[in-house]
């Protein structure tokens, strides 16, 4: 049976059901079924990192996960990080530091950095560079991206403090 069937998961806090063929990747399901087109597909074989989304707190390549494998999982896409009216601290830092040019890779870098800083708000520059090496950006030369992520760390530390209180 290669025909479409329903898959249920949570996307950016809201329950969602997509009816897709088993071969459908999570990235394609998000884009084509839910019209969450902020997730970009570059290489479609796990090299470029543009399609990075967060599944149960872990950054993963959306093209290397089947939609069916996301059954019951909690997914965060770039649309869940902030809105045009209310950019997140990470997004504001990207704007301030000009950490994007064409923007194709940006969603994947934001989701990657968000997952990293949520888990490791004290990540040092070496760690940030290592993690971002999994995302290809052909415009910026990475320096403004690193600067933006470094600056955004403080916002994630504040979140941790609030959670601890």
């Amino acid at each position, binding site marked *: 049976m*290669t025909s479409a069937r329903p898959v249920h998961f949570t996307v950016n806090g809201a329950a969602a059901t997509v009816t897709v063929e*088993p071969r459908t*990747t999570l990235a394609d399901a998000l884009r084509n079924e839910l019209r969450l087109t902020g997730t970009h597909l570059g290489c479609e*074989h796990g090299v470029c990192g543009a399609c990075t989304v967060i599944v149960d707190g872990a950054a993963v390549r959306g093209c*290397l996960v*089947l939609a069916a494998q996301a*059954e019951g999982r909690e997914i965060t896409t770039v649309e869940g990080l902030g809105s045009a009216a209310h950019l997140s601290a990470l997004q504001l830092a990207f704007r301030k530091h000009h950490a994007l040019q064409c923007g194709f890779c940006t969603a994947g870098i934001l989701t990657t950095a968000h997952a990293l800083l949520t888990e490791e708000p004290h990540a040092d520059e070496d760690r940030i560079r290592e993690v971002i*090496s*999994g995302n290809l950006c052909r415009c910026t030369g990475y320096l403004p991206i690193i600067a933006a992520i470094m600056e955004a760390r403080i916002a994630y530390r504040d979140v941790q403090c609030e959670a601890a209180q």
Partner: protein
Amino acid sequence: MKLPPLDYICPATLPEAIAALAVHGGNAKVIAGGQSLMPMLAFRLAAPSVLVDIGRLPDLKSISISAEGIDIGALVTWRDIERDAQLAQAHPLLAAAIAHVAHYQVRNRGTVGGSMAHADPAAEMPGIAVTCDAMLTIVGSTGTRILSANEFLTGGLSTVLGADEILTSIRLPLWKKARRWAFEELARRRGDFALAGVAAFYDIDAQGLAHNAHIGVIGVADRPMRLPGVEAILDGRRIDADVILQAAAVARDAVDPADDIHAEAAYRRDLLGVLLERALARAANITLPEAA
């Protein structure tokens, strides 16, 4: 490109998974993290009619350290290993090697069992398994068999796994505390596939002589392999600069890498020698004289 049409099932138990594989014969493929298989499907290098997802099977996700050895479930991810401080103490060579595996997002999903079953010649996990005499537990319709990593790997992307078999865990022998060891590899970027790599360890006796040397290499043949000629040079010797240079010369001659788009054979051969020198110098905690 998009994946070929296929069916997908997600069994709840190991017997169900094996039964599903048996029903579909060679047309089924096991998927767990999918970090090797999904690219193969995207390139249409693999086109199974059905994927059997073992990602939700119970009991395959544990790491346990006992008197018998270090047991790592097939579903343990690189990230699980990275976060396990106890494991890093129990097997520092494994932890050092796994630090080189793939990029952040792939490390969150890629599994130990998947890497072994995919059997990439440049992959770190099969390299450690071969170097450290790991034993693999394989469960199939006709029962369970336990094989050494050497018996398991039969060539590039090839293993003895039958159509109805699942690799469930891998056991590494316990690590000796005072052991000398090092892992060295070169990739264009950290996390990319190794152009070549060396895993090395040996024990030191009361006289300060090396014995029980294990030297494993990745990326220079169709599968990871030990270098017995190099091990023979190290065993019974005090590891100094002369011995290391001699060992590196033997290593260069012992391998016959192929040319590919990433590196020429001659480059890989030289690189292996350099990596072995670095690994042995690091293990012995000595500084080699600069090459002339």
